[in-house]
């Protein structure tokens, strides 16, 4: 079912700024939408307002065109998985999964069928008789998933359900959530502060900061066409290299960029965005993957010394000092770069980003 948030505002007492600041958002039926943003940006508050656990100060929430803004949580027909809570401690696994069905006064036989089916779906059918003390963190989180799904909700809310699990389990459950989404066809709204989790899970990513939505788009869009410097910096690990610089006119009609210690010619696609910006301050960004090591210095190329090497497996993340700036660069581990080496960095013109230094907005027309 389609979930629509309209001008949603939530302000907590004893706080001067809004936790959620008049956000508008449409999540299509059957979509897996991910709310992504740093801690404290209002993701949980947004989710809790959708669930009815928090009352918005103003704005409307509709699910499948039905206004649910003032409905009690139990009447909204959705399910939620919480970050810090998974199992009712006085019930065993079976009773946990059956719990939501008792609320709708389902018959015992039907309950049994539904519980076993859900347990099978999340691979905990062998745990049904266990108590809270006898299941691991990952298993408890599966119980929470099964309990949430057992009523076959059309809208599924998840607040960082994987953040308390170890890395391997997290990746595994992530895949299972993706599969559950495909199997059920329900609308999923998933909250995380982990951009990698967001990228791998989401059909649509909603990047938030300080109670505002920064960008809504596919994982591809938020990665390759960030609307502002915050999104560019937050999405992608290792994060984008960013430098302040000044725009100037080049001899051949193009634009150039003065950066601390070196300058670059900017590709033509920036010409429109920079029309009236000669002399202005901008933020220039380039991802570590878009920097190449060259054997010789050349055009759009700067030289520096390697200060740090981090192994990432098949690739290394090296940090190269160019004047004041430390550039993160992804290189093939087999190139065996060592601390102290001199490198010549070449910046892929097609992957440079420019942002207005004041508004931090992208200076590219809205396209990839």
């Amino acid at each position: 079912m389609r979930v629509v948030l309209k001008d949603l505002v939530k302000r907590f007492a004893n706080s001067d700024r809004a936790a959620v600041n008049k956000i508008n958002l449409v999540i299509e039926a059957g979509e897996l939408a991910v709310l992504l943003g740093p801690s404290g940006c209002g993701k949980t508050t947004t989710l809790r307002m959708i669930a009815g656990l928090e009352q918005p100060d103003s704005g409307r929430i509709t699910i499948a065109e039905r206004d649910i803004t003032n409905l009690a949580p139990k009447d909204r027909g959705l399910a939620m998985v919480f970050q810090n809570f998974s199992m009712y401690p006085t019930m065993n696994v079976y009773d946990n999964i059956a719990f939501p069905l008792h609320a709708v006064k389902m018959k015992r036989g039907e309950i049994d069928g539904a519980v076993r089916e859900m347990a099978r779906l999340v691979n905990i059918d062998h745990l049904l008789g266990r108590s809270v003390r006898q299941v691991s963190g990952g298993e408890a989180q599966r119980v929470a998933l099964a309990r949430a799904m057992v009523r076959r909700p059309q809208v599924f809310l998840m607040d960082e359900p994987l953040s308390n699990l170890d890395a391997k389990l997290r990746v595994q459950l992530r895949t299972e959530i993706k599969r559950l989404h495909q199997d059920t066809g329900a609308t999923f709204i998933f909250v995380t502060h982990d951009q990698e989790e967001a990228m791998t899970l989401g059909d649509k990513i909603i990047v938030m900061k300080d109670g505002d939505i920064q960008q809504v788009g596919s994982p591809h869009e938020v990665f390759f066409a960030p609307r502002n410097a915050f999104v560019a910096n937050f999405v992608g690990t290792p994060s984008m290299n960013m430098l302040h610089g000044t725009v100037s006119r080049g001899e051949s009609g193009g634009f150039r960029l003065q950066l601390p210690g070196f300058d670059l010619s900017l590709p033509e696609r920036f010409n429109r965005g920079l029309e009236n910006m000669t002399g202005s301050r901008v933020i220039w960004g380039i991802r570590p993957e878009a920097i190449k090591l060259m054997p010789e210095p050349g055009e759009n190329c700067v030289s520096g010394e390697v200060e740090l090497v981090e192994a990432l497996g098949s690739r290394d993340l090296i940090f190269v000092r160019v004047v004041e700036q430390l550039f993160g660069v992804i290189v093939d581990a087999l190139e065996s770069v060592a601390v102290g080496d001199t490198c010549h960095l070449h910046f892929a013109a097609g992957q440079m980003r420019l942002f207005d230094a004041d508004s931090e907005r992208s200076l590219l027309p809205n396209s990839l």
Partner: protein
Amino acid sequence: MRVPRSERILAYVILIVMAILVLVPVLAGSVTAFKPQIIWVSSPPTWIFEPTLENFEFVFFTRKGWLFLRNSLIISIGSVVMALILGVPAAYAFARFRFRSSKALMQWLISLRMIPPIVVGLPFYAMFLYLERGLGIGLRDTFPGLIITYQTFLLPLVIWMMRGYFAELPAAMEESAMVEGYTRLGALWRVVLPVVWPGIVATAILNFIFAWNEFFLALILAGNRTSTLPMSAGTYIVRTRVEWGNLFSVNLIIMAPIIVLTIILRRQLVKGLTFGILE
């Protein structure tokens, strides 16, 4: 956790010394309850004698001890039930919601625990008198009157203890149930109460003990119809003499339910008072 042997021995020594200090007077007195009247106050004390129940028979039947026992039970159980019915939901509200002056209210509640009973007893007496004369509502020397008065001391204890138990639980527990189709009250009943049950038992026992032992308020506000066991104990100490054997048999009757309750429910009591930390 392994405790070194030497520390365990030390702990036992301290506990045994404390137990002796506390228990010997109680036991020596309790023995008197089973002595025939002629050796109540023999000097030196008689330790070898044929135990008799005549003191119990005397206080229980001749001096209407069964009536005082009944009154004490009605008042204590009634006060605890009322304090739980009012206090548990209040404690939940204090744990989960912030409302105007909720903090100040909590502090006021704890201050109620600190005032001596006499500060409460006399105003209650005056209030009951006015109610009786003005509105014809008689609360003096009635069970409801005492049960209401005892709330002054029981309610704060219930609220303070239970608020602690509720605050320990993640709010997501009942919120999860609310999303899954229950009202907040339904969630409280089906999800939260089963978890805090040991806490409720511990709270009930502590409150029962307070109400059961209470003497002063009963002295002021109870009368012939509602006299409690502790009040009846006082009648065995008169100006000219103390009826030791009778007094100690009443004492044993007073102590018995507390000892039995504590033994039966000691696991829940420890769990409730420590919130499972010692499990």
